[in-house]
């Protein structure tokens, strides 16, 4: 009995085209699963990579601030014994925006009702009668069209999934690249500090020497003409390295979106003025 029922059902599905609709629904289910898994993986990965990139950007922003607030200030303090130094421009704080991680032109999986042109489970009495009277010609056509649409959607979704994979790869590469930039800041600031240290020692020793030579204990300025070449070279190196660091601090590394840190500049300018006045009074 069950065999007869199964055979009849099979024949009915073949005649009306329901088997195509069933195949379409099954394929849509599989495609949805595949797409959702891919999306979930993509979201997790993007979040993770995004966080890492954000961390690097924050670190770079901190470096930029430190360059202006700590290192340039120290340079100016040491250098003013020889010459007044001004730093033009302001550090640029890069704003990390999640939108840079998004794929452009991503079209999500369309809803099942947009693809299925016939619903055998929710057919009205009239529709069913019509289907029987027309020997399922039109329902079969619609079911086949639905299956074709779902197959095409599955092919299209493969492209969208591949685009997501590509986006992850691209973000991974960007992370490596921004990580390299962090390394550049790191090593340059380290060398800058070392050079400042060395230059400060040189300036201090020359100050002691020139004070003893000139018997002028109140003079705070050093005459650069009396400095040994090595100290002039150190000064030049520091000056050029400051230009390099200043340029690095003024750049945006992922986008051009960001804020110029006005408050710090003002503070630096005020500090510069006070110190300059003191030097002028003293000399």
């Amino acid at each position, binding site marked *: 009995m069950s065999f007869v029922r199964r055979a009849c059902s099979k024949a009915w599905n073949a005649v009306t085209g329901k088997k195509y609709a069933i195949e379409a629904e099954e394929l849509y289910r599989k495609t949805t699963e595949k797409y959702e898994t891919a999306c979930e993986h993509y979201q997790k990965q993007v979040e993770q990579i995004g966080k890492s990139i954000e961390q690097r950007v924050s670190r770079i922003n901190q470096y930029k601030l430190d360059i202006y607030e700590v290192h340039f200030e120290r340079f100016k303090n040491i250098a003013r014994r020889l010459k007044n130094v001004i730093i033009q421009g302001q550090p640029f704080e890069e704003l990390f925006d999640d939108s840079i991680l998004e794929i452009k032109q991503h079209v999500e999986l369309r809803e099942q009702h947009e693809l299925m042109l016939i619903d055998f489970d929710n057919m009205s009495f009239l529709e069913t009668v019509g289907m029987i009277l027309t020997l399922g010609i039109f329902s079969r056509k619609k079911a086949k069209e639905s299956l*074709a649409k779902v197959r095409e959607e599955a*092919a299209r979704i493969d492209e969208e999934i591949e685009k997501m994979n590509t986006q992850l790869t691209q973000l991974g590469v*960007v992370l490596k*690249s921004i990580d390299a930039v962090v390394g550049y800041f790191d090593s340059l600031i380290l060398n800058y500090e070392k050079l400042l240290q060395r230059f400060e020692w040189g300036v201090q020793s020359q100050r002691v020497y020139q004070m003893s030579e000139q018997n002028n204990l109140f003079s705070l300025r050093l005459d650069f003409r009396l400095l040994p070449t090595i100290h002039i070279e150190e000064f030049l190196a520091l000056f050029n390295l400051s230009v390099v660091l200043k340029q690095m601090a003024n*750049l945006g590394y992922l986008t051009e979106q960001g804020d110029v840190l006005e408050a710090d500049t003002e503070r630096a300018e005020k500090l510069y003025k006070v110190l300059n006045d003191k030097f002028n009074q003293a000399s």
Partner: protein
Amino acid sequence: MDTGASLKQTQFDSDTLLDQLSEASPLEASRLLLKTEIFEQRNSLDVMEQIHQQIEQEQSGASSIIKPVFLSICDGLVGIKKLGLKEKGITASRLVSEVEQFDYHEESKVEQDHRLDKENLNASTQANRDDKGAYERSGLEDKTALSAHKQERYSGSSQTHSELEVNEKGQQRRLHRANSKRVEELRSADKKTSRYISNTDHNLPLKYLFDEYGASKALTKEDIKRVANLDTNYDEISAQLNTQKGAKTWTEFSADVEVKRAELLSKQNKGKLSKKQQQELADLPTKQTLENAKRREKVARKASDAEANKAVLGNLTKDSKLAKGVLGSATEQGKKELENRGIGEVVLLIIKPIMFEFKDIFTNGIESGTDSHSALSSLKYRLNRAFDYVKRNVAAMGFDVIKDALLNFCRNIVNAIVDMFVGVLKKGLKIVMEGFSAIMQSIKILCSDSSPAQKGDAITKLLATTITTYVGYSFEETILGFVSKMPMGDILSEAMMVVVTGISSSVVVWLLDQLDLFSTKLERRTQRVKEVFDLRVRQIKENTDAFETTSLEQIAKQRLAQRKLAQDMSDAIEQGSDLNRPVLNMADWLKIDLKVRTTDDFIKLLESDAPLAVN
């Protein structure tokens, strides 16, 4: 298949990325990498929409029917006998399609031609006809059998009933011998006697049987005489009906009677029936009579065919000359076909690459794709290429032609044997014979890799075009009769069958395409969408790999370079050596332009009153 350049994903150019990364500062690398477009920034739904539009344009439109119809007309012109191209299988549509699809990388194939197949089969059938001379009634009539039949019908009585004739009331007509007393009485009373005198009629007329069976080489005149005089072929009917029927079969006669009856009844209804016509109407056989006659005709035909076919089989097995004759005629026909087909295929094989070269020269220029820089060397290259193609394919083509010829040889043998038989058996065997090529091709299609829907579609079209061609030829006499009455009809009639069968086949294929019984259009569309997206996905993968490899390599190189420069700087600071050089190197590497590059310039700057500005 053309996926359309506009549908393809653009190929990623890693050289350009490498150049950009090398030219830009390493500090800009991240932004540059983020901005890089690895895949086309285009909505995938737009891509799908474009594929649908392309497919729709290809599948719809009048061009899909106009072109084959136009080519069919050209085929007709090419088919004029004096040119002798038709027999060689060269038609305009085949030439155009072969040239259009020509590709040096593909092997040349010998295509099946339904029209040529049918014409060859017709020629074979024509050659299989036996000539038994002019029809002579005396040679076929068996008076002894006739009189035996009459004797049996009368069985000692002076009267009998007609075997076929009945009046409107369903009563059988009474008949008498020509020399009977009753007939004598009627004659002396000056009355018409033909209604009462009996004749023994050949149900299937002798001439008809002579024409029908006479074409068979396996039947002798004696055989035909025996079959024509079987008892089943005799009917005792009135002399009047026998005269009216004449040399027609009952089927033909019935059709004529019905037309005549309708004509006379119409006149009678209008009141325009003359006395003579009234008599004529009264003398027409009744409907029941005609029904009886046709029923008898069926019985007679069945018995005659069975007897004739039995004789054919007997003669075939006994007479070795017949078998030799079959082989000889099939060989003769096969030779002719092989010669024609061979020449035709060689001509096509030569024309294809030459036409391709001409087309390529006019489209892309003589030097295009030849790696040559002068017109002469390009021409030489092209000619060599065409010659090489012909050389490479001539053997395979020859093999195909011989294979086809062998197949046709077998078919001609079977056809010759089939032509010896008669009646329904012959008709049945003929259908199988004529559909032989279509059946062979259907088997090939069934064994191919196509989807079930595509196979169904291909077989439907194949059978439909085959049937259309054969149906077209079955109306040959009507069509040619009509054409020959037109101006230049004698020349046009040669081409007309090709035009008619070509156009009807094209229309049938177009109609089947429009009906799309197997949803193959949908299948093709889905297949195209899948192919395009597969290609795009593959390209995205390749692009991603190229991007990743190039970028990571460049990032690694930059890291190494920066580490070395930083180390040089650190060493210089610690050792107190020349510091300016490492700083300058670092700035240059970072593509930062330093204005003060020497100690002298720096001292000048220090000497000025202006403060040192870091900018």
